[in-house]
């Protein structure tokens, strides 16, 4: 499946009158961006271990030292925090799930993808593989 389909689902839920719908939209936005990057890397034989994979992906992107990938890591981590609040924090202030915030999450996902594409999956995979070899996490 094309992971970017998650953003279409996010779009379908963005104007939901139910808070649960708007929370789910934020969650789908994150997974669109996360899976887009994970799939691109996997196609180039760079895999992120399943355990703590979300945190590790951000760490790997940041560790490349590439300015744009560091920004991707930062934005992805921020969007993930929005998702954790949407998925787990039932007592959170509903303002965090307003239609504007939902649109912000979708735009954040688009920006993450654009930034990643601007570097190129091949280059990103090479830089992460270099980091993993240097730190003996990959043969």
């Amino acid at each position, binding site marked *: 499946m094309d992971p970017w389909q998650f953003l279409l689902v996010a779009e379908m839920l963005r104007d939901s009158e139910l808070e649960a719908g708007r929370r789910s939209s934020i969650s789908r936005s994150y997974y669109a961006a996360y899976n887009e990057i994970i799939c691109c890397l996997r196609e180039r034989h760079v895999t992120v271990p399943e*355990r*703590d994979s*979300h*945190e590790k992906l951000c760490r790997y992107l*940041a560790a490349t030292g590439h300015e744009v990938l*560091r*920004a991707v890591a*930062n*934005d992805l*981590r*921020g969007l993930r*925090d*929005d998702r*954790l609040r949407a998925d*787990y924090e039932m007592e959170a*202030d509903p*303002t*965090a799930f*307003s*239609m*504007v*915030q939902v*649109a*912000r999450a979708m*735009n*954040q996902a688009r*920006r993450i993808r654009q930034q990643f594409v601007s570097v190129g999956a091949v280059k990103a995979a090479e830089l992460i593989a270099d980091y993993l070899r240097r730190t003996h996490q990959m043969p």
Partner: protein
Amino acid sequence: MGTAATSQQVRIEPTVDPAAAAFADKHGLWPDIELAVELLHDVFPELVAVRVSHVIDPESTDCEYLRVESRVPGGMEDMEEILDREDAFSAALRARMDAERRWFFVFTVIII
């Protein structure tokens, strides 16, 4: 903690949850919080509140951090510009705070 007026703009003092304060004490993060709030004021002079809370990642085995949430007035039409300013804030933070310290924080903006 409320606000304190200066000659230039109203400085918003962050509201720090007790668990976040304990985490900041443990890791010596108060100067970093101070720096972040200063930079947030530079980028979002219209900012109305900053809240710092402690997050234990429910999906990771060993990950906790401080969520610094800024409340900024605006509407749908301001969203792109606010995202650009968030990028500017992140760049300014990268220039002033080392990577390991930054990893203790996640910054987010709530448009109100």
